[in-house]
């Protein structure tokens, strides 16, 4: 996004983080993404108020109703309100995306920083181990892990999380290799700080930008992977209304009732698009040198 650089003359010096936040707030597309995201999160959080009867209330007499006043998004093959299913489903999709990213980032950052910090044999072992993971495309690895672990929300989170560990390890490792040679690390070591303290207190805060950017795109990637898993019949199982599971369930009615397929797909696309817009803005704000 092309931005006008406004020169502000102030006597007060702002920190790097404040500068970045300032740039982010000025970025209109990123803010639009954030607003859409907040709206969706609020709606999903309020699902219990909007649809108090829950996502599983069947009404066989009213199946396959096109969107109308009573059912704003229509009903599915069992007469369940699509609005309720989409709203409750959003909780699962967003939660899985977030939780899988936390798992992946947690393990990946620790592996990456240990590899980079100790170097040598440790580095070699960890990175060669991750190379094996890397040779298998992420989604395929998630499919393989998920198929042996079985369905369920927790297993889906683990499968998606583990399959994206190598990417986080790499994101953390590169910048740490550069930072660990700097004087403040030497100073900390001279003060006899423990390795763990040096890594978490001195090194990691200095390499946060690429990690934050990676996390912001990782959540949207996790949502898509979760949807793909349930679409293949893995991951979240019926009747849990995760968005991919909704897609998968309504696929066979695509000719007669296309709205059943359109609605959950639009939800995924909208949330992921909003997250990517925000993530792009975050990257531009944290690293103005990059110009996408």
């Amino acid at each position: 996004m092309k931005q006008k650089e406004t020169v502000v003359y102030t006597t007060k010096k702002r920190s790097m983080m404040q500068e970045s936040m300032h740039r982010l707030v000025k970025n209109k597309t990123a803010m639009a993404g954030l607003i859409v995201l907040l709206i969706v999160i609020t709606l999903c959080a309020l699902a219990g108020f909007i649809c108090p009867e829950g996502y599983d209330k069947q009404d066989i007499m009213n199946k396959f109703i096109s969107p109308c006043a009573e059912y704003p998004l229509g009903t599915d093959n069992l007469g369940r309100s699509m609005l309720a299913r989409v709203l409750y489903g959003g909780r699962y999709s967003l939660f899985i995306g977030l939780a899988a990213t936390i798992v992946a980032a947690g393990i990946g950052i620790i592996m990456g920083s240990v590899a980079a910090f100790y170097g040598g044999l440790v580095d070699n072992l960890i990175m060669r181990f991750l190379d094996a993971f890397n040779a298998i495309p992420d989604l395929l690895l998630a499919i393989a892990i998920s198929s042996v672990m079985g369905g369920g929300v927790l297993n889906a989170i683990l499968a998606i999380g583990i399959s994206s560990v190598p990417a986080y390890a790499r994101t953390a490792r590169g910048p740490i290799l550069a930072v660990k040679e700097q004087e403040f690390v030497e100073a900390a070591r001279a003060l006899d700080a423990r390795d763990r303290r040096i890594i978490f207190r001195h090194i990691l805060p200095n390499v946060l930008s690429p990690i934050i950017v990676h996390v912001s795109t990782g959540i949207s990637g996790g949502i898509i992977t979760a949807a793909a898993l349930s679409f293949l019949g893995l991951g979240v199982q019926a009747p849990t209304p995760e968005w991919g599971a909704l897609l998968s369930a309504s696929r066979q009615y695509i000719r007669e009732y296309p709205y059943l397929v359109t609605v959950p797909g639009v939800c995924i696309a909208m949330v992921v698009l909003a997250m990517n817009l925000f993530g792009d803005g975050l990257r531009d704000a944290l690293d103005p040198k990059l110009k996408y």
Partner: protein
Amino acid sequence: MGRYILKRLLMMIPVLLSVVLLIFILQFITPGDPAKLQLGTDATNEEIENWHEKYGLNDPFAVQFTRYVWGIVSRGDFGNSWRNGQPITQEIISRWPTTFLLAILTTLVSVISGTLLGIYAALHRGSLGDAIARVIGILGISLPNFWFALMMILLFAVRLQWLPVSGFYGPLYWILPAGTLGVLGASSQMRITRSAMLDNINADFVRTARAKGQEERVITYHHILRNALIPILTNVGSRFAQNLTGTMILEQIFAIPGIGTLMVLAINKRDYPQLRASVILVAATVSVVNLLIDIAYAAADPRVKATFKSSSGNFLKFKKRAG
């Protein structure tokens, strides 16, 4: 150069071995007895015991693993399917060309359209065309490919009836799957191309070329694009890997008899040897494609070629910095 290729081929061996080990361990830690899943709950203990014996599951892990690897290396034998007892290799070989063809077609669509769009967007930075390209760029990575494919079926096959809904009987059937996945993949290629072009567009050598009166077309393709090629090529590799898995998922939607439909069948029947073979095959293919791309670096960039001559070790360092 020959030595480098040989070295890279040798480096692939431990990686692929670890892939096999990883997949093997994954199956080993699976809860439940596979025999009970395959034979049903009313199988007698003797039947289960015979089944274990038949598929060699009574042996220790190391023996099973060694036998499996040796089978693949010496005879290209991936063992027998738990689903129907048939040799896996034959079934995979008969289905592989379909998936591979689609993945290649998809990658061609992504790379050609994405690169051209990226070049255009970089040259017209800030224009309406650039804005549109950037919207496409962000939409493409946001739409789930299986949903986009369903929407395309709805539009082109159900409503307009221009193309067949599903099946795989000739080039007409290739258009929808390769087109949908290819267009989505084009977005990341476009983003990478655009930013790589922008990295070079204000370089000193471009100004020099312009100062000496070089044609704009030559400047674009010979000076800017040539120097932007390394990240673009890197992305071709990851495009192929993603398109290969993407194809495997879309096969479900378009009822294409490839590796993907076989894999989903295997997953539903808990036929782990079949799943294992598919994953290993994909990993091997992706590794080979990445090797080809590493070799293509040398053709694209004389600086890389020069490091080949001094020593291959430096080349690896260089690649990390450039890519």
